[in-house]
């Protein structure tokens, strides 16, 4: 790692990271210049990255704010897993979550936070809807059990492929068959290895029926060879999928039937998740709901943010007063550190809550501690008669032990909190852990680089 010793490389790395972090953190700022010399209509910051046709996509236009800051509703649902086999539970929970986010999209909430959690044998879905205040509407929408229905094309209607779109849009063209989600054991994505060259290796969706379900489906298939069936979820007007019964099924269904089509892995997976939600319906019950007023949070966040800035400023003054030039470097590293951490919060993204911000502020304290340890050690080494340069080297070297051990113990605490804690406690642990890791980098690498750079110039 010799290049790490090269001062130009280090300076370059620090500046590149800083620039990148600033670009990420900046909110969108419009730049409009229109005069005789220069014409510019552009914007900087608040990027919504979408490169290579969506292969690399990341929306970093805004910080994700938690409910306590933005206000809104938090709903905790308990999932009733009593009818689900053990092996299917995780999948079923994911599907239930997926289906809830689909419904929330209908609500038009901009940034819902939906997460699942498993505490002992309890499976839960936590939904946070920033900016929403209609609790009962949200609860009734989210609390519904997903229901999958198999429908067939009305026997009175003729089937030609040209008419597909017309039927697709017309809910009344489909009639119930009596086959529902409960007739399925599960839904999986499988790879086609039927020997058909054209489809070899393509993903397909396999419907695993119960014995009773297979009989029902079998008779449905026999009646409808060459005609489409439609799979409806909830009360949606449009089917999720409209496979056409192939001629292989004319004599009934022996194996688990598959839906094949022009799927890639991702679309197949998405469809299977949605179908599974209907196939493994989990009734959810309301466990907890909270409505938080936005003004309450807003006032609190603005004041706390301001207070945090004041705190940082006092620390800055204190460092400069106590350690002079070195203190100034430490102060600069605090700014570098703050911007770096905020950038990471935006990219991951970390949902910012009040405890989360508290964790961040504590990590600022710990970052400062690392610098203080180094500078105090430097002073001691000077006191013991070392030359300035040597003392500085030794300061970094010998303080490292304390810095490492004290921060490791904090990281262990964070890890345990993150594993065992719920909701806000997790947010706190996450921001503290990110803060500690970045602080180790900034208080050592950044400060040391600047010191070296000053010495050389």
């Amino acid at each position, binding site marked *: 790692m010799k290049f790490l010793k090269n001062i130009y490389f280090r300076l370059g790395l620090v500046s590149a990271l800083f620039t990148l972090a600033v670009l990420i953190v900046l909110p969108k700022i419009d730049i409009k210049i229109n005069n005789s010399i220069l014409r510019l209509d552009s914007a900087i910051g608040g990027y919504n990255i979408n490169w290579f046709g969506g292969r690399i996509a990341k929306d970093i236009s805004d910080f994700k704010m938690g409910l306590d800051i933005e206000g809104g509703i938090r709903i905790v649902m308990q999932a009733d897993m009593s009818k689900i086999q053990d092996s299917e539970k995780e999948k079923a929970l994911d599907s239930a979550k997926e289906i809830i986010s689909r419904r929330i999209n209908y609500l038009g909430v901009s940034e819902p936070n939906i997460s699942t959690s498993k505490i002992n044998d309890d499976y839960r879905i936590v939904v946070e809807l920033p900016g929403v205040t209609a609790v009962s509407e949200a609860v009734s929408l989210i609390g519904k059990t997903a229901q999958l229905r198999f429908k067939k094309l009305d026997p009175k209607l003729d089937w030609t492929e040209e008419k597909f779109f017309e039927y697709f849009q017309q809910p009344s063209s489909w009639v119930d068959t009596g086959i529902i989600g409960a007739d399925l054991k599960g839904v999986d994505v499988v790879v086609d290895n039927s020997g058909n060259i054209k489809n070899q290796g393509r993903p397909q969706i396999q419907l695993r029926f119960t014995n009773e379900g297979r009989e029902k489906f079998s008779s449905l298939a026999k009646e409808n060879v060459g005609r489409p069936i439609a799979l409806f979820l909830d009360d949606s007007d449009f089917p999720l999928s409209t496979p056409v019964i192939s001629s292989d099924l004319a004599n009934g269904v022996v194996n688990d039937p598959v839906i094949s089509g022009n799927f890639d892995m991702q679309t197949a997976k998405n469809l299977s998740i949605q179908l599974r939600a209907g196939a493994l319906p989990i009734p959810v019950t309301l466990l907890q709901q*909270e409505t938080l007023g936005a003004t309450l949070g807003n006032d*609190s966040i603005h004041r706390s943010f301001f*207070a945090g800035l004041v705190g940082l400023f006092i620390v800055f003054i*204190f460092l400069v007063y106590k350690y002079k030039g070195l203190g100034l470097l430490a102060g600069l590293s605090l700014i570098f550190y703050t911007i770096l951490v905020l950038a990471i919060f935006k990219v991951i993204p970390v949902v910012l809550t009040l405890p989360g911000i*508290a964790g961040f502020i*504590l990590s600022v304290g710990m970052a400062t501690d690392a610098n203080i340890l180094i500078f*105090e050690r430097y002073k001691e080494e000077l006191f013991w008669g070392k030359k300035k340069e040597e003392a500085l080297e030794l300061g970094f070297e010998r303080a490292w032990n304390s810095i490492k051990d004290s921060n490791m113990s904090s990281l262990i605490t964070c890890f345990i909190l993150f594993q065992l804690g719920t909701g806000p*406690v997790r947010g706190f642990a996450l921001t503290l852990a990110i803060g500690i890791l970045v602080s180790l980098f900034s208080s050592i690498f950044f400060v040391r680089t600047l010191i070296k750079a000053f010495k050389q110039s």
Partner: protein
Amino acid sequence: MNILKYKIGYLIFSLIVLIPGIVSLLVFGLNLSIDFAGGSLVKYSVPKEVVADVISSVYKGNDVVLEGVSKENDTTVVIRTKPLDVHLNSKINDELKKVNKDISQVSFETVGPVVGKETTKNAFVSLFWASLGILLYIAYAFRNIPSPYSSLKFGASAIIAMLHDAFLVLGIFSILGHFAHVEVDALFITAVLTVIGFSVHDTIVVFDRIRENLNKLPKSWQFETIANYSLVETLNRSLATSLTVIFTLLALYILGGSSIKNFVLALLIGIVSGAYSSIFTATPILVLWESKKTRK
């Protein structure tokens, strides 16, 4: 400077400070908020002239048992009840609007008691595992100290100091809860856990110096002398670090939003205690434990 001269005195002082809080914890417990107890917490914004009874009478008219009604300030009334469902809440809101159209609901929280129990249980479980994890880490990180000293004793002393800080915060909040109606909410758990993290962080820095000096200073020196020497050496750093954190927290306490006031107060108490305990609790305990031995 002989800091450790009064080591027994510091420990007695710690006990004197801790005992009232612990007695209060045992007798009164903590004033648990809705996060733990379960129930509904409803806040109303009201015109100045409206008294809290106006609101509570509407609740009583709907056969809701109230656990607490208070007017927090001129324009805020807080109601605590057993868990309230959404429909009843909106019905009550409609009735309140009829009484006075300027009464509006600011927030409505319902927490099932299951969550409450779990939050508490999680906190204790986390505390236990965090202690064990830190103990093991210190035992590992300090494994190279010269015999006959034991790295486990370093770890255990750090944990005792940590519990000292945690129970000081718990005790003071128990007293505040009983006499000043300060509630303990889920954020409080975060505060206690932060204090634990900081406490150990601070203690390790002192212990690290003792570890270094054990290998460096003359063999004829007593453990106590070495510990004292290390304390004096790290005193500047201990003060500087505690001051920076305390500055930040004071700024947050004085200028920050009201919803985090209690949280910051708990942190302040805990961090002052954490800085104190590294020097005046953890080190004296370690010295009392190790001082009977001399190095070979």
